[in-house]
């Protein structure tokens, strides 16, 4: 092996090592950050107006995009589902299929992805800009901990908002499925609701969806506040932190969804 090749391999190994240790270090920092946020949770609830404000910004202001997306996803699901079920003469099962897909899977996942794009990115940008304009440093110098005053309320605002948004997404999705399935295609309304009522159980179907949406809300909120707090205090730094929030949150939602689904199916089998 020539010296140049060996030097090249050593260079890439060093870069790989640097990247891995950097990622592990960042993970450790994020874990400590999560502990600090949890430590300051009582502050977030003692000053409940701050958390309510964040629920408004992360939750209420996300309603339009969540509800509209839910409606259209439900409509598409109904159309696609009908085309498939009709082949097997099971088109009356449409309500069941639409509801199950939404409450178990699509509701939490798509609502989580939309939440990361709209609210997560906004939280990162807001905290990042507060850092860039020295508002966080000013708070520290006023003996006010920014994690307690700024981060914890935003984190819990996101955690609380996400399951509510996912539930509304599923509800509007089912309504969209009803419009297409019953009003446009002409499936019997009683069959649509009856099959759904008979087939979808609160436990485990709805409960699993709620658990997932809580997990996605916690993951997205943590990533959003961490990326904002850790952003480089420059315009470019805030921009790349915002992008990272959306990318990392989306991947985290999909990976968490797989892990949680594995555990939930395993639990269902044991039952």
């Amino acid at each position: 092996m020539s010296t140049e090749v060996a030097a090249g391999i050593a260079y890439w190994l060093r870069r790989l090592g640097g990247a891995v240790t950097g990622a592990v270090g960042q993970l450790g920092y994020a874990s400590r950050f999560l502990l600090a946020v949890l430590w300051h949770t009582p502050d977030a609830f003692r000053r409940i107006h701050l958390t309510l404000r964040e629920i408004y910004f992360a939750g209420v202001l996300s309603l339009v995009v969540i509800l509209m997306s839910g409606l259209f996803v439900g409509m598409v699901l109904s159309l696609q589902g009908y085309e498939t079920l009709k082949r097997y003469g099971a088109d009356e099962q449409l309500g069941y299929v639409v509801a199950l897909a939404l409450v178990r899977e699509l509701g939490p996942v798509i609502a989580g992805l939309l939440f990361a794009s709209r609210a997560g990115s906004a939280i990162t940008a807001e905290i990042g800009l507060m850092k860039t304009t020295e508002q966080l440093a000013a708070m520290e110098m006023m003996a006010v901990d920014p994690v307690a005053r700024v981060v914890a309320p935003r984190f819990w605002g996101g955690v609380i908002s996400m399951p509510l948004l996912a539930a509304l997404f599923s509800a509007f999705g089912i309504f969209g499925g009803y419009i297409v399935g019953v009003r446009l295609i002409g499936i019997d309304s009683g069959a649509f609701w009856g099959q759904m009522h008979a087939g979808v159980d609160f436990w485990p179907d709805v409960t699993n969806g709620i658990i997932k949406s809580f997990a996605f809300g916690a993951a997205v909120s943590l990533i959003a506040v961490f990326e904002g707090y850790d952003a480089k205090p420059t315009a470019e730094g805030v921009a790349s932190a915002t992008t990272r929030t959306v990318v990392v949150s989306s991947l985290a939602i999909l990976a968490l969804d797989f892990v949680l689904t594995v555990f939930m199916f395993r639990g269902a089998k044991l039952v």
Partner: protein
Amino acid sequence: MSPTAKPSPSRAAESIAAWRVDPQVVAVELVDVSFSYDVRPVLRGITMTIPRGKIVAIMGGSGCGKTTILRLIGGQLRPQSGQVRVGGLSVPDLEPDALYDLRRKYGMLFQFGALFTDMSVFENIAFPMREHTELPEELIRDLVLMKLQAVGLRGAAYLMPAELSGGMARRVALARAIALDPMLVMYDEPFAGLDPISLGIIGQLIRRLNDALSITSVVVTHDVYESLKIVDYLYFVSEGRIVASGTPAEVRASSDPFVRQFVDGAPDGPVPFHYPASSYREELFADVD
């Protein structure tokens, strides 16, 4: 108490109280302080004393470590070596609770104000009062209006920070910095980017508030002209070291090359015009791959 002992929060509070009543206690003291960001040294053996009730300016070019000194005094950074003492307390050795106790006695004016953009002017000034006191809303209102009156912006109480000019934002930030009647106020580039009228107003406010409230002020700036009018003492920092110091009269009369370059605004001198680089001729005629 030894300077390196770790005081408990209660002892820190006692020391802070002693600072208020004991005129012998020096407000701020840096002894042989060195600090580096990673491997880049910023401060190299800085020693300075800031007496109570005085306005002291720390001057120097951009990136010379002036703001780092403020961050060390504020406890946001820890020196690699040396001592930083405020009111007799060793700041780097304070536990977080004690440090926060100490910071309640600080006021800080950031370079661009650092006003909370989601709060009105009134809310910005009320913020530290609401965070640290149990005062009734009526009293907070009166106190906020008094602070705003002191900086001449009572009429702007309900404007948002985005509606303020640079000079007004700086004055609001000053009102917020003195909201809790601090014992030490730090000013980070208070004159940067201001028109001449705003600049004069801020300069006069720093002097008047310092004298009226018996506070100690540390002003980090590179505005020689304005500083010489209002401060009691100046330190000149270059490349992480104190290269000159003196009263405004001494600075005006100084023949020190660095002080002269700074006061006269000469582009070249002890602080070179060119950033260190290889030979201009060699670089121009070098082969480019």
